[in-house]
């Protein structure tokens, strides 16, 4: 009976901290990007098609990031390796979009460069901790 009650705690606290702070950071990042696009649209000779493309990609980025954080949060706290694996899989398009905003958009401000660099640091740590946590979940025998 004592053995049955001993369910080991496998959720990763550092990963949960990163997800929580990343959620807040991405909210601030999104607001800053919207304001910077307004600034660039007004001040700089931004082509209309490029501006629409960049804003639509930003909204796509918001959707993917929300999906990723939800699955990561849920997977880590409920100890489900499949949900956490989905979170790590969605990390790849999020990183691609971040690199796009870092290097490839029409006008890149210095502030955008630094903000995306910090976001990529978040993604690196979450990738490492996510893979470690998935392996811990898969290895454990819970009964």
């Amino acid at each position, binding site marked *: 009976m004592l053995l049955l009650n001993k369910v080991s705690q496998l959720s990763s606290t550092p990963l949960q*901290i990163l997800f929580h*702070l990343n959620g807040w950071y991405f909210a601030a990042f999104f607001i800053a990007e919207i304001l910077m696009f307004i600034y660039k649209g007004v001040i700089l000779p931004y082509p209309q098609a490029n501006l629409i493309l960049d804003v639509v990609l930003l909204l796509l980025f918001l959707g993917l990031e929300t999906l990723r954080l939800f699955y990561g949060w849920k997977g880590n706290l409920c100890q489900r390796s499949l949900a956490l694996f989905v979170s790590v899989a969605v990390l790849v398009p999020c990183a691609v979009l971040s690199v796009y905003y870092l290097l490839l958009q029409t006008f890149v401000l210095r502030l955008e460069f630094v903000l995306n660099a910090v976001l990529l640091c978040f993604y690196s740590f979450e990738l490492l901790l996510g893979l470690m946590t998935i392996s811990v979940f898969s290895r454990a025998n819970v009964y």
Partner: protein
Amino acid sequence: MSALKSLVPARFLTLVAHLVIVITIFWSRDNNIKSCLPLEFTEEQFKTEDTRLLVALSVTLGLFVIELAGFLSGVSMFNSNQAVLSLLSHSGACVSLSCFVFQQWPCWTYWIMFSLCSVIPALFEFILLISLKSV
């Protein structure tokens, strides 16, 4: 409890905002250096002031490492006194450094902001880290 729950992300966001502005100043510090030199300056004078400001910014990044280490390791993550101190000082740093960049304040004003907004929270953070190890 809800106030404490919102202190953690607020502190983190102000810390990262301050870090972002400091990294941006690394790139755009030429104008600030020219603001504290006379109209006719030599290359030697420019290099001296540039080195001085570069040292100040690098030490600021070192203090950020201390503060992030204390925060992310959990030592002071839920310490509300440290959170409020960090929140106020880094918010003040964000506002004043934004003025520093946009209005091209002379480079000696950076030391005032450095002393008030970077050294004080990092010092208290360091005290917390040391006092934890002694327990």
